[in-house]
């Protein structure tokens, strides 16, 4: 089946700066897709090109197979939820939501019906007559979402949709967004700099770096199989050990690590072994390191342990039961182990 959205080699240059540099990606119908990148990675520029607010310097955008590269925003079946929400301050919640439908010149009765329905979906029926100034941050966010969703776009673009909310509300809204997306059956593309948010919400994640597409895959793929050191570092926490290959293994300071990954090309000049904190256990493993506990951070659900080793500092996470069974204190000697399967190898 043809993907809903096809982005083909899209580029955007501002003077001498290339903000987006030949990005190609496909998004399937009903997919929850995340564009993940640090600030300056070009993710917002890419989103604005999909909405029609920026003219690409090169490349094409196809929606349902039709070229929409030159179609202005008001004629695209695509809606954008702005980071600032951009609610109309002089209009009530109801007027904000019905605005887009009025632009479609729908009959009054249908507009009223669809707005009521949408107010129900976002659970703000009681606040329909409020002005945006009289709403909390979370409520504004939901109105902004409703205003875009009520148009039933083919594609909804969300620019840092949860960026302005506090942490607790944010994790609640992550699940809420996913539920809503499922309920309305609209394809979502979310821009975020928060890797955790992308992992929780998205069906697939595209990691952008310096305007280029670095890696695209399911959350599991990008977390477990990052394509390079940058991607590994950007998503989640990762321990890195620099070393040199020797007999198919990686020789690092004070230890030798084996991996199921093939040795990367050009590794003779140096390579990096990487392992996630939650993959490291106490005791020996296929790969083993000895060290001393430097510090511990209690996180409730688990315990984060910082260990100094000959190969450098290592971070690992112990679940609460393991930590309780074997109490540790700063200064205690520990042995850390993990399997070759959990060891990634990257070029230096």
């Amino acid at each position, binding site marked *: 089946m043809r993907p809903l959205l096809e982005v083909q080699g899209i580029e955007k240059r501002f003077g001498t700066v290339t903000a987006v540099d030949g990005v190609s990606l496909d998004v399937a119908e009903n997919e929850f897709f995340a564009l993940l990148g640090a600030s300056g990675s070009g993710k917002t520029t890419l989103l604005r090109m999909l*909405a*029609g*607010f920026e003219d690409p310097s090169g490349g094409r955008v196809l929606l349902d197979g039709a070229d929409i590269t030159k179609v*202005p*925003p*008001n*004629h695209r079946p695509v*809606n*954008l939820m*702005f*980071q*600032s929400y*951009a*609610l*109309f*301050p*002089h209009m009530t919640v109801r007027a904000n939501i019905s*605005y*887009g439908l009025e*632009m*479609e010149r729908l009959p009054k009765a249908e507009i009223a019906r669809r707005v009521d329905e949408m107010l129900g979906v976002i659970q703000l029926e009681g606040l329909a007559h409020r*002005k*945006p*100034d009289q709403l909390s941050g979370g409520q504004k966010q939901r109105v902004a979402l409703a*205003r*875009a969703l009520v*148009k039933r776009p083919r594609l909804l673009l969300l620019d840092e949709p949860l960026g302005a909310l506090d942490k607790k509300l944010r994790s609640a809204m992550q699940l809420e967004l996913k539920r809503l997306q499922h309920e309305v059956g609209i394809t979502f593309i979310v821009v975020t700099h928060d890797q955790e948010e992308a992992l929780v919400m998205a069906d697939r994640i595209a990691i952008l770096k310096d305007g280029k597409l670095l890696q695209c895959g399911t959350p599991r793929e990008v977390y477990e199989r990052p394509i390079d050191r940058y991607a590994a570092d950007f998503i989640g926490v990762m321990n890195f050990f620099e070393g040199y290959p020797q007999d198919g293994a990686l020789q690092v300071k004070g230890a030798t690590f084996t991996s199921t990954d093939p040795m990367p090309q050009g590794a003779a000049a140096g390579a990096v072994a990487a392992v996630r904190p939650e993959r490291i256990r106490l005791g020996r493993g296929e790969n083993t390191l000895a060290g001393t506990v430097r510090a511990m951070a209690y996180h409730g659900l688990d315990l984060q342990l910082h260990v100094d080793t000959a190969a450098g500092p290592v971070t690992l996470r112990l679940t609460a039961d393991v930590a309780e069974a074997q109490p540790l204190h700063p200064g205690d000697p520990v042995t850390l182990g993990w399997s070759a399967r959990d060891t990634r190898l990257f070029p230096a």
Partner: protein
Amino acid sequence: MNQRASTALMAPALAWLTALMVVPCLLILALAFFRRGLYGGIEYTFTLENLALVFDPLYAGIFLNSARVAGTAAIIACVIGYAAAYAIAAMPRRHQPMLLFFAVLPFWSNYLIRTYAWIVLLNREGLIVQGARWIGIEGELPPLLYTQGTVIVGLVYSYLPFVILACYAPLSRLNPEIAEASFDLGASSWTTFRRVTLPMTLPGIAVGAVFVFVLSIGNFVTPALLGGGQFQMIGNTIYAQFLTANDWPFGAALSMVLIAIMMGLLFLQTLAVERGSGGRVRDA
């Protein structure tokens, strides 16, 4: 800051305004309730005749005509000024202060000189007539000076900087994403302007319009110079009562009604500004 400190800080300004403006104005306005003396002096007997005379068709007519002239000037100034402010606000941010400076520049030169300059431009042998002759337009040209239209043009010219500044303030503070949101939801540029940008910047227009109206309706220099005494505005009438007819009580009565109109409008303007806040980019 505690209340005592703010009272102390406000005291000099309050004393200054009270002693040098409010009191003299009240004294002049009080004259409205006294009779005019036989030889121009004031006879201190209470009367409402002066106020009644203000509503005589002759003077009420002058009021209405002044309001019409001032209203027309206010509308024209708002249309031109809003367009200019809109264009300035759409320019790159670093150019905006310079453009505003140029827009306001005429305002810093002497009002009288500026108005006289118009006479040089518009009189029978003025630059415009000479220009018309030079490009070959023959025959009797319509009078450019000493018409109501000329007065309106002069008033618009004088007070345009006020309107540009008043409209620029809300326009420059608009979050551009709000207009983009309208565009994104399917509105055309015109609809976006009509339903989003204009209503959000209406307070600026209200401020500008009231300024032009209030300053125009009481103006006497422009009607005197550019109108050439061909028709009277209320400012000229008051001027004449005080300085020519020597009828201070009636001049005071006219002033009182004029001030009441101005105060009412300024009050409404304040209300409009109070209500129309929000929708700006919040300061981080």
